């Protein structure tokens, strides 16, 4: 006979669920509205989604205040873990989503935005990612990851082009494989330690002195492969360029930011305790992953003929660069990860949005792909403002001071220096130089070549509306004046990371 379980409602601390539940409620609301009155314009759903995201952001601010006062908060049978990492990454997730959602207010009509389900799925995805980062329970991580990924596959497919289906199926297959790896890796750790909570696993492993190091390595390998897929680390990156090419530019920009920060958090929680407890093998493998991902992706990006594919490889390279933070594993490097990713989300979402506003529905004869380099030839003559903004984003991505990403790079390389990884710091610096070439290539096309005959410059902004222009202006201002925000940002981030014990 089982004892009746008595749990007081207060000890559940249900408020920890508020940030994740808000987008889910929003998604359900959108579905309900659609049932009651169908055929509404997309602007209704954009407004509702934005409202819920803003409320979500507000509750996050509230949790941030609580964290600064009381430190880490656990909730719902200690499954939810609201520490500094969770709060910071949710800020990035929700913030980037707020920047993304107005991008659907395009001038041209696109298939996917006519369905309310698009916005509902989008909000479900955000909820999933928020769950994923706000826990150290491997099962909840898995649930969050799958909720978000399944929604994301559908969002890609809804773009409704030949290549979108290919992209969605490719992403789905790879994602399913990664999910399998994740569950298998978690299973190994559960078998070893009898727990699915990362901090419990760490305690048990430390207590028995890593006697079963062989099994630990097997589990680590599977988890590494699974997160490698999500983070598009070489050699698990093969899906990334095709998926980016197949999805809409806005979605590609979103994918290069939000799913990755969620995966970074899980990687940080998992791998840092393993590295710090002396699993040398993992350190070596991560070192190789970081170097190979940065370098190989850079070299592939050099030979691309399509700007979107180039940006896809560049995002892979940036992910490798940031993965170095997890390898180094100091407070400074973990803060650098967040700083870098916040600045990167501005810049990268900005540059993908620039591609998005120049989206063509029908390709002219001389163009093989929608965003080939030729398309941007001589842009300074026909659309000077757009060319200058695009050039700005490229310079920022290349890490040219004083634009946003330079400060992220500076802090990241500095954390490698202080962490004792001198060679890694040099490799990171030289990779930035290599990356300079392909960003420069677009600038060369835009500023130094003659425009294609018959190009009046209208096509670069043909898809633009006030909403899109606002987002791009926001990103551009953020990129130029980043220096003003670095100091408060850095202090904020460091306080959160340090107080979470990372």
């Amino acid at each position: 006979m089982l004892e009746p379980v008595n749990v007081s409602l207060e000890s559940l601390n249900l408020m920890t669920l508020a940030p994740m539940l808000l987008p889910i409620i929003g998604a359900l609301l959108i579905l309900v509205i659609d049932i009651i009155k169908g055929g509404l314009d997309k602007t209704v759903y954009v407004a509702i989604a934005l409202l819920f995201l803003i409320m979500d952001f507000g509750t996050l601010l509230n949790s941030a205040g609580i964290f600064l006062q009381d430190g880490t908060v656990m909730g719902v049978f200690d499954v939810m873990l609201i520490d500094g990492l969770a709060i910071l990454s949710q800020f990035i997730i929700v913030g980037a989503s707020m920047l993304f959602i107005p991008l659907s207010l395009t001038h041209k009509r696109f298939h996917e935005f006519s369905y309310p389900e698009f916005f509902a799925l989008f909000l479900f995805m955000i909820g999933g990612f928020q769950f994923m980062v706000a826990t150290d329970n491997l099962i909840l991580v898995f649930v969050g990851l799958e909720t978000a990924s399944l929604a994301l596959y559908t969002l890609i497919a809804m773009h409704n082009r030949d290549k979108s289906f290919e992209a969605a199926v490719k992403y789905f297959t790879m994602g399913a494989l990664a999910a399998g790896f994740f569950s298998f890796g978690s299973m190994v750790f559960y078998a070893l330690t009898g727990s699915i909570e990362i901090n419990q696993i760490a305690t048990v492993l430390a207590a028995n002195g890593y006697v079963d190091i062989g099994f630990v390595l097997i589990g680590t390998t599977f988890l590494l492969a699974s997160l490698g897929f999500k983070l598009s680390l070489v050699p698990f990156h093969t899906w990334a360029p095709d998926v980016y090419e197949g999805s809409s530019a806005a979605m590609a920009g979103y994918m290069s930011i939000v799913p990755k920060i969620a995966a970074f958090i899980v990687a940080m929680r998992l791998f840092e305790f393993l590295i710090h407890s002396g699993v040398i093998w993992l350190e070596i493998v991560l070192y190789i992953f970081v170097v190979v991902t940065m370098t190989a992706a850079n070299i592939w990006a050099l030979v691309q003929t399509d700007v979107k594919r180039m940006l896809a490889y560049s995002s892979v390279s940036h992910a490798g660069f940031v993965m170095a933070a997890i390898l180094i594993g100091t407070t400074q490097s973990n803060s650098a990860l967040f700083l870098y990713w916040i600045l990167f989300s501005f810049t990268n979402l900005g540059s993908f949005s620039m591609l998005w506003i120049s989206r063509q529905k029908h390709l002219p004869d001389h163009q093989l792909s929608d965003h080939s380099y030729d398309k941007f030839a001589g842009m300074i003559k026909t659309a000077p403002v757009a060319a200058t903004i695009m050039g700005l984003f490229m310079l920022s991505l290349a890490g040219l001071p004083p634009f946003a990403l330079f400060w992220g790079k500076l802090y990241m390389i500095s954390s490698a220096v202080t962490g004792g990884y001198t060679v890694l710091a040099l490799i990171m610096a030289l990779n930035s130089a290599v990356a300079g070439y392909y960003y420069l290539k677009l600038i060369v096309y835009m500023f130094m070549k003659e425009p294609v005959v018959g190009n009046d410059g209208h096509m670069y902004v043909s898809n633009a509306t006030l909403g899109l222009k606002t987002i791009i202006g926001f990103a551009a201002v953020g990129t130029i004046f980043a220096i003003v925000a670095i100091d408060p940002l850095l202090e904020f981030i460091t306080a959160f990371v340090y107080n979470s014990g990372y």
Partner: protein
Amino acid sequence: MVDHILSILIFFPALAAVFGFMVQKEGIRAYGVAVATIEFALSLWLWFAFDGNVSGMQFMEHLPLVPSFGINYILGVDGISLFIIILAAFFTMIGIASLTDTPNVKNMIITLLFLQMTMVGVFVALDAIVFYVFWELSLVPMLYIIGAWGGPLRIYASVKFFLYTFAGSLVMLVGMLFMAYFYYQATGQWSFAILDWYRLILPESFQLWLFIAFFFGFAIKVPMFPFHTWLPYAHGQAPTIGSVILAAILLKMGTYAFIRFSLPLFPDASVYFMFPIAILAIIMIIYTAMVAYAQKDIKQVVAYSSVSHMGVIILGTFALNVEGISGSIFLMIAHGVVSGALFLLVGVIYDRRHTKMMDQFGGLAHVMPRYATIFGLMMMASVGMPLTINFVGEFLSLLGFYQQSHTLTLLAGIAIIVGAIYMLAAYKKMFFGEVTIEENRNLPDVNKRELVALIPLAIITVWLGVYPKPVLEPISNSVESIVQLMHDKSITQEAKDRIPNLVKGIEITKTSAGEAH
């Protein structure tokens, strides 16, 4: 206002450039000249207000940017940077004033004004990160100038220029981060302020590695042999104004940075690497002089001779004594004036004939006497004739290095004679003899717009050649404190012997540190 003159000098051209976007195309040249003239007047005011007897930093400004990471907006000027700033303002002014008809002239002038901001910024920054920001930012306008207005290979040349310098400076950035980290380890505080770094005494092995890291950034910029290959392309393809600014100011960033960073931060490493660098510098002088002799294109002759003279500057810098370093700083200014003028002169003939091949000319002295006179004067200055500006700098640089090594100085001296040969040969081919090509018979002589730029340069060339004291004195005052600082900081006995002790107290750190806090 004079307290913030350095910030004004940096941001006035940038602000003016932003407003330039709304100026009508017809008025943009007048606007550009006006802005550049105001900037030049401001820089002269700076010289006027500058106290030549103080060896430390003056007009310091301090504003925290990222205090938790030790990045501050610190500016200051001393005798070393003062004249390069004036030179930068001067060349931007005459560059815009003498600008020939170019397509998209509005974009060109706005770009030049932005370039001026970065140039002034590099020379007044006293925080390594602020320095780095301007250093890197200066690449972008130059990339655009070469890439958009250059010759047929312009894209290759501009991208090569950008990537070479970018790669070198990223290695330098890692060096800067290490330097800041060592400062953090020593004091518990992050700082990128150069004057703070001056007080840090590092073990010799650290100095050697950091010296190498900084060397990559600076040597590519100078450019030193064997990193010089980007420069002939950049010069060959750049429009006249691009070559002028590149040769006169941008290359000086490298040699200036050696004096501002490498020498005082790493005195022992500087002594350790003195002879290897001197040998590189002498190879650079001799080899590029020989390459220059083999050129058929007059602009390439000037470009290689420019590299050759940068070798003398490096040699003077690494003499590590007051004569050598003062001489090299003076030579930086002289080289700016003379090679800038030579590039302008090449531009004059290119505008008329649209060729730079020397065999297309001959006997120009008959057709264009005034042009031939100014060219002749600048050519004489370039080979280092006494009573011209270059002579003072070259003489002092070699005098300085003579105290370190007799043989190497002798070699360098011979190399300068080789320099005389190719310049005289080039002059002979272009100006003497009969006019053989029909098109050359009726070339118009230099016009007023060109004279506006050339006459002041000719005056400076002779004036500072005859009476260099007003410039040389503030320079050597500041150099003395740097040399003293190096002597006091050095650890090894060899360094103590090589770097003279001037016994003047460590004035620079005292006064400047006092102002910084």
